[in-house]
Structures are given as structure tokens and as C-alpha cells.
């Protein structure tokens, strides 16, 4: 409130100065506050820029395209920017809002028919086109994920093999007592499934915690409100489901090896 009053007072004092809004990152880095006077120019180092007053400091949006770019953002009145940049009566684009989704198609059609030398696009299509960087990162993450899954599967199989071999004498005794191979396999698979389930739950917990850590760290590093890591119900379901399947398959394969060996051989005779 007070800041706005200060700006209003300054404007009354110097009505020829236009106002601009700057983003919080610029304000922080350059130590600029509301009411400060700045010079803006389209050419770096130009001595003859426009003097303006900072009237607002903006929060940055959660725009992935801004990550890793150290650009600052300044908002100016359109005519002021056109004048500073010597753009004349030109803009780069128009943003158009329609009355509801149903009007989008007709608006697109009408604009493209009428606009000479321009093309209208759905915002969604532009987003897809400009998000190639994140598609690359996403593919990379998926590839790492696949490698991790393969490694985990091998690891799981190895561990299950070790676990069942540790108990081969117990299994041999059970088989000699008349317990069927099917029962032994079911027992081992049940144990593997339980291990996989417990491991998955722990893993989800660790993953959630790591996700919080990642967001906290990168939001601070890039000074962005963007969520870098998001755990959704689908992801949890997929992870738990996959590890269950891998665990069960590993247990099944390991137990199969065990029950195919004659009991006396398991005893070491």
C-alpha cells in the first residue's frame, strides 16, 4: 500500500516518466526497489535511454522455458516498449482468449482467413513445439529409468538365488517329508512378493523424500516456483506394480532352480 502511494507521489512529481514492472530476480540481484528510477534502452550501454520508475515487482511464473536462463523480465506498456525498441506500430504476436473451448476452432478459422501474412495457433500446440528441450530431458530420464530397472531386475534375481540356496537343506528336508514342489515354489514366490512389496513401500517413501529434496534444492538454485519432481498416483502404481512383478518373477525363477534339484543333492549327497 505504502509502496503504491510512494509511486503515485513520484509520478505526481515527475509526470513525464513512465512506469515499468520488473521481476523479483532482477530486483534482488540489482538491489532495485519500488519507486527507483532506472534507464531503459534497446541498445546495451546506450547513454540516451528512457528514464522510468519501477512501479511493481513481479513473481516469476513456473515456466520451464525459463529454467537455466539467467534472463530478467521487465514489463512495460506496449506503446512504451514499441517506442524504446523503435518497433513502430508492430507486435510479435497477439494472445487471444475465446468464450469457452468450443469457440477456439471457429476463432482459429476466422483469424487465419482474415489475417494476411499471419497464422493463428492453439497455445497448446505452441507449448508442444517449444518444449522440445523437456522432451529430450524426459527421454533421457526414461532411458536412465530403463537401465535402472534392468539393473534392479538382475540384482533381484541374484539376491533371490542366494536366498533360496541358503535354505536348500530346509527345502530338501521338506521335499523328503512329502511337501510338493508346487508348495515350495508358492512359498518362495510369496516371500519374494512380500519382500518386493515392503521394498516398494520403502522405495516410495524414499522417492517422495528425494522428490521434496529435489524441489527444494532446484527451486532455490533456479529461483523458480516450478516443480522439478512430481510424484503422481500413476507413477506410484507403476513403480510398485513393476517391482512386484520383478520380485515375483525373480522368486519364481529362483525357486524353480531349487525344486528341479533332487533333495538328496540339495543335502550335499
Amino acid at each position, binding site marked *: 500500500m505504502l509502496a503504491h502511494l510512494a509511486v503515485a507521489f513520484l509520478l505526481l512529481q515527475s509526470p513525464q516518466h513512465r512506469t515499468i514492472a520488473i521481476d523479483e530476480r532482477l530486483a534482488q540481484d540489482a538491489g532495485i526497489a519500488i519507486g527507483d528510477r532506472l534507464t531503459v534502452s534497446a541498445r546495451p550501454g546506450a547513454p540516451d535511454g528512457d528514464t522510468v520508475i519501477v512501479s511493481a515487482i513481479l513473481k516469476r511464473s513456473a515456466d520451464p522455458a525459463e529454467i537455466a536462463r539467467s534472463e530478467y523480465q521487465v514489463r512495460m506498456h506496449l506503446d512504451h516498449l514499441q517506442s524504446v525498441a523503435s518497433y513502430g506500430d508492430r507486435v510479435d504476436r497477439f494472445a487471444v482468449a475465446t468464450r469457452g473451448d468450443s469457440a477456439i476452432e471457429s476463432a482459429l478459422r476466422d483469424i487465419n482467413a482474415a489475417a494476411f501474412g499471419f497464422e493463428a495457433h492453439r497455445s497448446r500446440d505452441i507449448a508442444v513445439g517449444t518444449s522440445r528441450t523437456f522432451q529430450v530431458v524426459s527421454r533421457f530420464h526414461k532411458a536412465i529409468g530403463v537401465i535402472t530397472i534392468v539393473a534392479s531386475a538382475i540384482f533381484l534375481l541374484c*539376491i533371490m538365488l542366494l536366498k533360496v540356496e541358503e535354505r536348500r537343506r530346509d527345502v530338501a528336508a521338506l521335499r523328503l517329508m512329502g511337501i510338493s514342489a508346487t508348495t515350495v515354489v508358492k512359498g518362495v514366490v510369496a516371500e519374494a512378493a512380500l519382500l518386493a512389496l515392503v521394498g516398494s513401500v520403502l522405495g516410495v517413501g524414499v522417492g517422495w523424500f528425494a522428490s521434496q529434496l529435489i524441489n527444494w534444492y*532446484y527451486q532455490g538454485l533456479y529461483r523458480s516456483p516450478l516443480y522439478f519432481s512430481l510424484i503422481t498416483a500413476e507413477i506410484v502404481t507403476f513403480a510398485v506394480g513393476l517391482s512386484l512383478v520383478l520380485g515375483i518373477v525373480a522368486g519364481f525363477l529362483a525357486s524353480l532352480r531349487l525344486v528341479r534339484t533332487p533333495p538328496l543333492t540339495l543335502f550335499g549327497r
Partner: protein
Amino acid sequence: MVVQLAWASLRRHATRTLLAILGVAVAAAMLLDMVMMSTGLRESFRELLMSRGFQLRIAPRGTLPFDTDATITGVSGIVATLRMNPDIVTISPVLGSTIHVPIGDRTFTSATLGADPAIQGDYELLSGRDPIARDEIAVNDDFIRATGVRIGDSMRVATGYDPQLRTYSDSRTMVITGRVRFLYGAANQLATAMNLPTVQEMARLPDNASLFMIKVRDDVDVEEARAWIEAEVPRVSALSIATALEQVDQRLSYFRQLAFILGTVSLFVGFLLVTTLITVSVNERVGEITVMRALGVSKLHIVQQIVLEGVVITLSGAIAGLGLGLVTARYLNSILASFPGLPVAIDFFLFQPKAAWMSLGLLSLSGIAAGIYPAFRAASLPIATTLREEAIA
């Protein structure tokens, strides 16, 4: 005998041993990839920047080369100022712009670089000759593939497109003199090269440049030269390779961090696998180990044998992982190489022997560490009690 016993023990459970080696191989591959990734981008970029010997770049103040559309005015004045410094050997101003090439019923949009062919450091001539005259142009393979042109062809080249009037501010016929490869070109990017005055004229930016490439004498301190340039020409930013690398590090710090985390996890997983295997193996052989102790085999030799088993698994896995790692690195690199705007010459995963040795070293240490505790524990069991328990079991 230590070696013989270790080998015999590994062969005894061949499936288990092979699986463990496979598991270590995957962990080793991931570790190698992460070590390669942590330094690859930086090294690759540094090699690229140094490839033509230009140690400094000058860009509009506060920007990185070609980061924005901003240009530097007063090129001739700046060149004259820079020539005053005897340490500066070569000055190559470069102007980037966009051209439109109508061929048939299609118009191809291409990036273009204007530079002095005699001293430029942006492209490499593959065939033909440099574009020297004002009506000459060299093109890259992506341009040739898209347009179907050949060296010697003439084509219409235009700039300054007005979409409303559908006209160009400048249009002229140019002859293709050569085929070039742009060192900093991105994949599938149409690009051409002309001499600097031509581009300045066509883009209506007389005496402008997007950047300057600067070569200083080999015995000169590059940072001192950089500081001199910024002092003499305050409206530009001078970037040494070191500062450029710092910027890259900052922007792509995520990959270094990811590399560190995944590398550590891979190492840990490999260690865990080997230590689990060794522990189970040792627990199965407690009787044998205790009998060896009873026979007079020293603790040290028993520990050596067991540790050796861990090392064999780890090293075998590491060697297999080296091959696997190079394959997966190529695959992962091909994914990351499709980053929009990334120079084709940049590799995220750069194989350096140092990286391979580091991975091998880390894995060997983990293999040794994996076996030490279970081995020592088993070798320290009280002989008489253990033999009695084994007899009962």
C-alpha cells in the same frame, strides 16, 4: 593356493557368479557413463571452443554469443581499438542473420553467418571454396539435403521478410561456391556462410557484428587480455574459454549433479551386490573356512582368498561394464544430442581414459571393501565352537 581356492569357489556356483558379474557390469556401465557425463560436456565444449585457436569471444554486453538478437555497432572502431593491443593476433567479426531462399514453390529459411573467410573460426570447408565475392555463398549439408542444390548452382537469397506485404527488403542472386560444416551448428539446421559486408548489407546492419572471435599470442595471459578488452570497449562482454565454460557449467549443472548422484548409487548398488554374494557364500562355507583355520591356514590368507573372490567378480563386471557403458553412453548421448540448438559437435558423454580408470579404481576398491568384513568375520570365528555347530547342523 589362495588364488586356486578363490577361483574354485567362484566356479562352484557358476550361475550365481555370472549373475553377480552381470549385475556389477550394469552398475559399472552406469558408473562409467556418469563419470563420462560429469566431465564430458565441459571437455567437449572446451575442445570445440579451442578447435580453431580463438581464446576469446566478444558479445554485446551482458549476453552470451548468439544468445539474443542484439548486435555490436561500430565494428570498424572496435577493430581499430583492438589492433592497438600487440597481444591480439587475429580479430574475426561475425554477423548472424536469417535468409530466405525460394526454390520452386517452397521457401527455405536458413541461418547465415557473415565473416571473413580468411580468418573465420566458425566453419570448416568440406569441398569447393570459400565465399569471397559479394555474390558468393557456401552452404552446409543440411541445406543441400533440404534444397537439392549443388556447388556451382545459382539461387535467389533474400532477407528482411515483411509478412504483411510478403516482400523482402533485399534479394539477390548468389552462387554456391562451397560445402561447409559449421562447428557450432545444431543438428538438422540449415546454415550458410557469406562474407561479412554482404550479410551486413542484406540485414541492413552496416558496421554491426553479433560477436568477435579473438586470437591472442600463445604466451599471453588470456584473462589479462579479456580484462583489457572490457576496459577499452565497455559496451561489450569479453568471454574467455574459462568464463564460457563456467556459464555452461552453471546452465547445465543439473547433468553434473545427476551424474554424481547416479554414479554414487551405481557404485553403492555394485558394492551391495558383491557384499551380499560374498556374505552368503562365506556363510555357506563357514565349516570349510574353520577347518582351514584348524589346519593352520592363517586368517590373512583366508581373508585374502575371500576378498579375491569379490575382486574377481568386481573386475570381471567392470571390464564387461566398460563395453556396455560405451554402448549405453552412445545411446544416451544420441538422446541428449537432440537438444534444440545444441552444436552437433558437443558430446555429453566423452570417453576419456581417465574416466575409465577412475571407474575401474572405484569399483576395485568397492570389491575389496565388499569382501573384507564378511571374510574377517568368518576367519575370526572360534574354531572349536564353530566346528561343533557345523557338525550339529
